């Protein structure tokens, strides 16, 4: 019984952590807009934490470059399982308009496995919330498979 409560709780309390891989700040303010009273993601139990050790979902905005790919990997490794990664915006998905730049590695999935891609430039808050909800479904599935 406790096991099933834990399973149910996972979807009800996703703690997100937001990492900015050098985005133009467009996607970041949209992520933060989700936390304002207008969208109020705390309704769904979502809390924005600043510590990878407490986080369940990693939201990544911006293009990954050679300098911050190690940081991104490090943060990802510090998150305890089960976890999900959501790439936000054109930059997070593929590298966006900066794709061709010499310092850019590309999308987030070049460095860590990504579960959900949220498109947009910038991504809309509604899309980001949808992305987190989809990410939770993915991560429930991953946990099932692991068991």
């Amino acid at each position: 019984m406790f096991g099933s409560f834990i399973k149910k709780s996972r979807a009800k309390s996703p703690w997100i952590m937001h990492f900015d891989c050098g985005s133009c700040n467009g996607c970041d303010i949209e992520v933060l807009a989700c936390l304002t009273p207008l969208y109020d993601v705390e309704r769904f139990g979502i809390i924005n934490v600043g510590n990878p050790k407490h986080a369940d979902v990693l939201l990544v905005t911006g293009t990954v470059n050679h300098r911050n790919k190690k940081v991104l990997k490090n943060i990802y490794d510090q998150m305890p399982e089960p976890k999900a990664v959501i790439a936000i915006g054109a930059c997070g998905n593929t590298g966006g308009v900066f794709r061709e730049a010499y310092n850019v590695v590309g999308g987030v999935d070049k460095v860590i496995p990504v579960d959900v891609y949220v498109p947009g430039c910038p991504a809309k808050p509604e899309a980001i919330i949808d992305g987190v909800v989809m990410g939770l479904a993915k991560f429930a599935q991953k946990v099932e498979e692991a068991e």
Partner: protein
Amino acid sequence: METLILVIIGLLVAPLVGGLIAGLDRRVTAWFQSRQGPPIMQAFYDVAKLFGKEKMVVNQWQILCAWVYLIAAATSVALFFAQGDLLLVFFVQAIGAVFLVMGAMAAKSPYSQVGAQRELLQILAYEPVLILVFVGFYMVTGSFSIDAIWAQDIPLLAKMPLLYLALGYALTIKLRKSPFDFSTSHHGHQELVKGVLTEYSGPYLALIEIAHWYETILVLGVCALFWHTNVAWMAVLLLATYMLEILVDNTMARMTWRWMLKRVWVLGMGLSVVNLIWLYAR
């Protein structure tokens, strides 16, 4: 036999009520900010989820410290419900607080180190106030045991109103609410990213959360002793106190530890001492 039943009630019901209070707290806070806020059961979902996560620790000390913190908090609540000795309750709860600091110190991370130092200062601020409140109980009833308080026929609030105000400081610090929330903040996005709790994760963070629920109940229990004669008034007193705590939490910014020490020592202890002198003079 009756004591045993009370202890079991304390051990089982305290965390449930503590979790509900935490959930209600978030609802009311959201209401202040004209948001909807999470479901009332949110605190339980959070803890259950944390139990389901991978066990990651920095070193073995953290496991021990988290468990001792939980056990000390639970024991102090059990002793409190068993109508035990207030001084014993106080010391057991202090052991828990110290182990929380030790757990944070065991990790090298600067956030958890700074958090631990600040937690120590917080302990330094509220423990004298708490002990003076217990001294007040002693001066009124002639004993440190909770039984002696139940034997009183008028509410203690009439005799020690200033001590109750001082206890409010201890409550704010113990609940880690603004302006005294600088060892761990509710919002993990501030300068300290959760301070003492930075290095805890998964199931161990959940243990600490449950211990925190126990402690909430303990301090609210001490507040409840101030109006033991009537259950309805006791409830009103607790509700008013807690609402005031949430209001203060939402209207205050975080202060520095110097400000806290000055405020709590000068005002909190000053209020207590004035009240104690008054009790003594009568």
